């Protein structure tokens, strides 16, 4: 069918001009870098915002920012980190770069749509940044944007700020849809000869399932955004009940604020896993490669990803235990939440069992991968606390929650991002990143994380509420103020230390040690490209042929400690030390 012809035809149309090659590019590798650079850039803005907030919390008398700015920065920090950094970086950055290379395709199936996806994403980022310059500044509604307060006078940015935020989100969703369609169809329909679904690296599985989830979860945010735009501009009452604000009866009646919360979290909870599943996939490949051992329980790992993705659509209301929802809902959602712990625990055990008796190389990617496992376990365990209604109610809206989600979906995926960048950087640039700087960066980031977030658990149990500008209350003891100051000092140091990473990336691109095509002796397809960095069309004249799964490390009797996926299987060799059902 049209398959082979269209798959191979891309190779012959390499654009020559600079603009077509690097700016209006349809090459998935260039688009991936564009996505990644934009996401990291906007992430740095969010990092600076968090530093400003921490200065206020640690040194309340400094008067650096006022209360309005605090809420605005908090909102922007949360939304940028979750949506514009992590989602965009995992799907648009890693997904774009790795999917075609790992499944053996020449490019994404719809290169033009892929290019549009990036430019819509950039537009959404620009609209979001524009909200800093509209009258009254960005919205200060908190990253969950709950109505009525999000569009009620008294909240910072209740007119223009919230509008730019919602419009930016809608544009982002269009971009994510165009990207997601590409990723899903490429994985399903454009694999190399011999590449079955059960031979794909777990990275591809994680991003694939996350992309499907994005296509099904973002519609909820889209609908919520449309309704809130109508509420704030046309004066409809989807989310607005009859309400008196600032002593005045507002022109709304009969709407349901709870409806927004349901829509938001029907998006919001899958969103956690849209970020987490790619991280699970990437870290599986890092661990296997750097422990020189096949991933433990590959089939279980795949099914755990699929089951987590499925279940995550049935747990959203555990974010709403204190919002006035019918109490018996809590019973259902607590159970479904705890059930998700089962496939998640399977994954954690399998990572640990992959390390067990492995030939562990403490490279920088491996350090970050192990850091991820530890951090994810800590963050996951506090999730069990918050998943239970009776424990959640006293802990809701305290720093315990802040500590929990920063551990589990903030820092843990970011550690994977760092590890994955150190791991795949040689493929993207042809040069290694500096190992020593990488080690320093890892230890500061990893230890700093615990110095920042462990005390926050304690503060939460102490009853310190989140989202407060100032803690000048009797029930907050002096020890909490001291801890806040400590956290701020560490947070600023860790924030500044990220300069090491940026410097390492920039310096290594020019001066880094030349890496060759496969510096980690890895098995998966992206390391077997004829050129490094891979050329336009990725594979030269012939598509690669795949003969085995991606985890043939230390196979008994093999001449090397790894066998690339492209290596044909000897005809008379029963038993390769692993199980493959498909063949």
């Amino acid at each position: 069918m049209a398959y082979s012809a269209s798959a191979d035809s891309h190779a012959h149309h390499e654009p020559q001009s600079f603009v077509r090659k690097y700016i209006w590019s349809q090459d998935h590798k260039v688009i991936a870098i564009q996505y990644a650079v934009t996401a990291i850039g906007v992430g740095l803005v969010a990092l600076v915002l968090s530093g400003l907030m921490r200065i206020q919390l640690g040194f309340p008398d400094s008067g650096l920012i006022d209360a309005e700015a605090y809420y605005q920065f908090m909102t922007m920090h949360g939304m940028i980190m979750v949506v514009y950094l992590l989602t965009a970086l995992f799907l648009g950055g890693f997904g774009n770069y790795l999917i075609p290379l790992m499944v053996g395709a020449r490019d994404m199936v719809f290169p033009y749509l892929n290019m549009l996806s990036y430019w819509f994403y950039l537009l959404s980022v620009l609209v979001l940044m524009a909200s800093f310059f509209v009258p009254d500044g960005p919205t200060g509604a908190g990253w969950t944007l709950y109505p009525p307060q999000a569009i009620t006078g008294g909240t910072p940015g209740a007119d223009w700020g919230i509008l730019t935020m919602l419009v930016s989100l809608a544009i982002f969703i269009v971009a994510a849809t165009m990207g997601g369609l590409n990723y899903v169809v490429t994985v399903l329909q454009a694999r190399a000869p011999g590449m079955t679904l059960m031979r794909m690296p777990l990275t591809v599985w994680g991003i694939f399932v996350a992309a499907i989830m994005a296509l099904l979860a973002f519609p909820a945010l889209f609908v919520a955004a449309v309704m809130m735009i109508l509420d704030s501009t046309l004066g409809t009452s989807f989310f607005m009940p009859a309400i008196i604000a600032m002593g005045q009866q507002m022109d709304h009646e009969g709407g349901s604020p709870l409806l927004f919360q349901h829509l938001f979290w029907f998006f919001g909870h899958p969103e956690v896993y849209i970020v987490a599943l790619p991280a699970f996939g990437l870290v599986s490949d890092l661990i296997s490669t750097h422990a020189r051992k096949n991933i433990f329980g590959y089939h279980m790992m795949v099914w755990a990803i699929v089951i987590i993705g499925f279940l995550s659509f049935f747990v959203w209301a555990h974010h709403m235990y204190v919002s006035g929802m019918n109490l018996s809902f809590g019973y259902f959602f607590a159970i479904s939440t705890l059930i998700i712990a089962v496939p998640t625990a399977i994954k954690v055990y399998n990572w640990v069992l992959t390390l067990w008796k492995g030939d562990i190389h403490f490279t920088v990617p491996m350090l970050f991968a192990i850091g991820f496992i530890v951090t994810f376990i800590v963050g996951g365990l506090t999730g069990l606390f918050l998943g239970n209604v009776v424990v959640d109610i006293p802990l809701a809206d305290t720093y315990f929650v802040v500590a929990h989600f920063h551990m589990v979906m903030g820092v843990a995926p970011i550690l994977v991002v760092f590890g994955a960048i150190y791991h795949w950087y040689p493929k993207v640039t042809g040069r290694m990143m500096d190992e020593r700087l990488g080690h320093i960066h890892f230890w500061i980031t990893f230890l700093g994380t615990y110095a920042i977030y462990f005390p926050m658990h304690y503060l939460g149990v102490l009853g310190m509420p989140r989202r407060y500008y100032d803690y000048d209350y009797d029930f907050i003891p002096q020890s909490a103020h001291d801890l806040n100051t400590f956290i701020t000092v560490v947070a600023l140091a860790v924030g500044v230390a990220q300069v090491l990473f940026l410097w390492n990336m920039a310096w290594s691109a020019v001066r880094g040690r030349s890496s060759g095509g496969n510096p980690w002796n890895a098995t998966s397809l992206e390391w077997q490209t004829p050129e490094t960095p891979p050329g336009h069309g990725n594979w030269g004249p012939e598509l690669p042929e795949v003969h085995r799964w991606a985890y043939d490390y230390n196979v008994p009797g093999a001449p090397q400690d790894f066998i690339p996926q492209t290596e044909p299987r000897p005809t008379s060799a029963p038993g390769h030390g692993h199980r493959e059902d498909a063949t």
Partner: protein
Amino acid sequence: MAVESGQRHESTRPGRGESGWQSLVSDWAADRATFRNVSWGKAMMWIFLLSDTFVFTLLLVGYMAVRLTTPLAWPDTSEVFALTVLGHEFPLLLIAIMTFILITSSGTMAMAVNFGYRKNRRMAALFLLLTALLGATFVGLQVYEWTDLIGKGVRPWENPMGAPQFGAAFFMITGFHGLHVSIGVLYLLIVAIKVLKGHYDRSGDYEPVEVAGLYWHFVDLVWVFIFAFFYLL
């Protein structure tokens, strides 16, 4: 068409002649493509429609939720959408006509796909244009319906017959659906022009007509649900 150059490698694609679960399993266990004879464009359209289904479902769920929470009376839709013909009031007559037109357009779309696969260029283009015409008629009637309701004082933010959410949900949901139909009309016109110019005769494949058809049938199906949940309930 079979995947070419299959003999170059150990094919994991089992032979035909299997049925039911076996064939499902071997599709998903295969290399290269999971859905054997499905082009990239068609696969993308199916997945996009799945995503769009969630948008419309959540719009309808949102409408039902506010209809439950609003303390004011919901207008009687059969009266609001009645049409007076020769002094008689026919409840929901206009909506019935619109629904009939849209479902008819699904029939003409199916004919266009059929003629496309028979490589009958003129008939395929004719039925595509007919489908687009029916779609445009639907949008025209919707404009009439909107004008009628606006004339009765219904606005997104208020509604003289009761709950303001009635106006809000009506304009939002029918507006979003009408936008889909309008985009569909443009889409069909583009495909019709390509058919007329012989584009698909040269490429040897009329499948893009079927892909456009998928979108069009989806828009019709969504209308059936809007009809059931907004107009009938």
